[in-house]
């Protein structure tokens, strides 16, 4: 019996307790073993998990290809930046800004969704791609005639998240133990990522989730079943965008800086890769995809130079180039050997093997 089987045979409560201990202990192990760089990677990984889970609603559940998803991340980030920075001298509390950011992104989701409802597949992808770029370009140019976004320079000195009077950017003493700032951030992001995951799971297993799946499978039949496909699709855009906006707010507070550069098309593609590579529509797979695609490139970035040095005695290839090369090869390999993702819905995988 291997460890995995042992785990699945344990009672539910024991499983839960082990998972909590593992998730709570992880940042300390990472911090001690790999240092702060990797703790930051871990925090970013959680942001990408939220993003991927949000995009999964649109792409995985409803089957609508969205190539401009990062725009909602941008909206959330800029809402946070504008409401909690010296830019306008506003310093709203986090519990007020995050919902406002999510709502603003939700509104953008509906605005984007409405004109694209008749489009499918390639056409939808192109329009959403354009929308993503438009948002980025707006952020870039909204510094004149009235300066709102500070243009390409971006907005700096954004307030860190404050919870109970304590800023997450500062370490915290509890019972004589010092919890580093990056670990505090990790816990906060983890809590929100778990909430997003729970919301995703519950939505999937509901009347709304079934309607999304029906549209993905056969839109005409879904209509004939009495589903108002227009509203239900808009709902997918709105929900996905809200999660993106939430993650964006967290991103702004974590970086304490936003600029349009962070919201390029490449980022949209990256999040889409996480969803597709992990297993579209399957939440555990999507989470895995987000983790793998955040951690692996970082590992290449930090590992490629020293490994070459050790093996060849010199750095033959620029680690940055090598990173993209290996990343590309890895993607192609996964698509060839696991076309439905690293961890697809087991029901569908059975199907695949049965044929």
């Amino acid at each position, binding site marked *: 019996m291997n460890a995995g089987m042992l785990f699945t045979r344990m009672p539910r409560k024991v499983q839960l307790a082990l998972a909590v201990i593992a998730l709570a202990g992880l940042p300390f192990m990472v911090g001690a073993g790999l240092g702060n760089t990797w703790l930051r990677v871990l925090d970013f990984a959680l942001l990408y998990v939220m993003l991927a889970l949000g995009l999964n609603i649109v792409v995985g559940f409803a089957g609508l290809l969205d190539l401009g998803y990062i725009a909602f991340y941008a909206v959330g980030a800029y809402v946070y930046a504008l409401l909690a920075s010296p830019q306008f001298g506003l310093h709203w509390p986090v519990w007020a800004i995050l919902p406002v950011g999510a709502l603003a992104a939700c509104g953008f989701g509906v605005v984007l969704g409405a004109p694209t409802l008749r489009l499918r597949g390639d056409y939808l992808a192109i329009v959403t791609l354009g929308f993503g770029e438009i948002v980025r370009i707006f952020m870039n140019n909204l510094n004149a005639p009235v300066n709102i976004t500070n243009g390409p320079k971006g907005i700096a000195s954004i307030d860190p998240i404050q919870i109970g009077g304590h800023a997450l950017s500062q370490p915290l003493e509890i019972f004589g133990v010092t919890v580093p700032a990056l670990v505090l951030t990790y816990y906060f992001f983890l809590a929100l990522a778990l909430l997003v995951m729970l*919301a995703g799971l*519950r*939505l999937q297993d*509901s*009347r*709304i*989730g*079934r*309607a999304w*799946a*029906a549209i993905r*499978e*056969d839109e*005409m*039949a*879904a*209509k*004939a*079943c*009495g*589903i*108002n*496909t227009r509203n239900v699709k808009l*709902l997918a855009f709105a*929900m996905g965008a809200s999660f993106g906006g939430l993650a964006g707010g967290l991103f702004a507070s974590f970086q304490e800086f936003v600029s349009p550069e962070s919201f390029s098309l490449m980022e949209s593609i990256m999040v889409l890769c996480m969803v597709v590579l992990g297993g579209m529509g399957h939440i555990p797979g999507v989470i895995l995809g987000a983790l793998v695609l955040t951690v692996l490139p970082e590992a290449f970035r930090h590992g490629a130079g020293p490994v070459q040095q050790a093996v060849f005695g010199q750095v033959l290839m620029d680690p940055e180039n090598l990173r993209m090369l290996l990343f590309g090869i890895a993607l192609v390999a996964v698509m060839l050997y696991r076309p439905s993702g690293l961890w697809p819905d087991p*029901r*569908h995988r059975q*199907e695949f093997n049965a044929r």
Partner: protein
Amino acid sequence: MTALPLPLPLLEARNIGKRFGGVRALQDVSLTIRRGEIYGLIGPNGAGKTTFFNVLTGLYPRDEGEVIFAGAPLPLGEPYRVAQAGIARTFQNIRLFANMSARENVMVGCHARSKVGVAGAVLRSRAQREEEAAIRRRADELLAYVGINARAGDLAKNLSYGDQRRLEIARALATEPQLLALDEPAAGMNATETGALRALIARLRDDGFTVLLIEHDIKLVMGLCDRIAVLDYGRKIADDVPAEVQRNPHVIEAYLGVVHE
């Protein structure tokens, strides 16, 4: 003059017209379906039967005419509202949600008659849990009604052809229709399956549904239907009880014409 009062019409289609570019797929088609009857719609290939279904259910916009259903005009071009108004259909080339289980397919059919939204789903409110349980029960009842409850957990695409046709009927019933429109439900079935289907359709009528049936299996149509309309090149050429339709010279000509092709 009949002594008995006629049953109320459930559906009145008036002067329906539909073209596809130069093809006049439907011309001036009017028909009246009474409550509780099985109404057949037959005609040679390409006569416009499926087009009539598509226009009726709002999947295609109609060019001319109007439809009165249960006393009110049917909304145009909004298939989901047609379904909510009480017309459910199956498709000639089966359109199930292939990667969903049989049960889930039927549960989707319950969409129009349930209402819990995003907040209820995310918070798992009590109303949501109760509605969800009711939907599931209803789906299982309907699967049993059409006789495929043993396959409830199987993906729709793994069902046999005959079971897929039954599943489509169960999904249509889940929308709680008054009129059930079946587009060639016996197509591709063997004799045993057709026999069982015939019993199912008869039972639907006994249980108070009105059925509009497109079918090429003439024996099935003649045996089941109370009245039959015949389409040919988009026009209605006959509309009568089965025995009369069979004798109608226009009908015979239309069908023989097809045989000679």
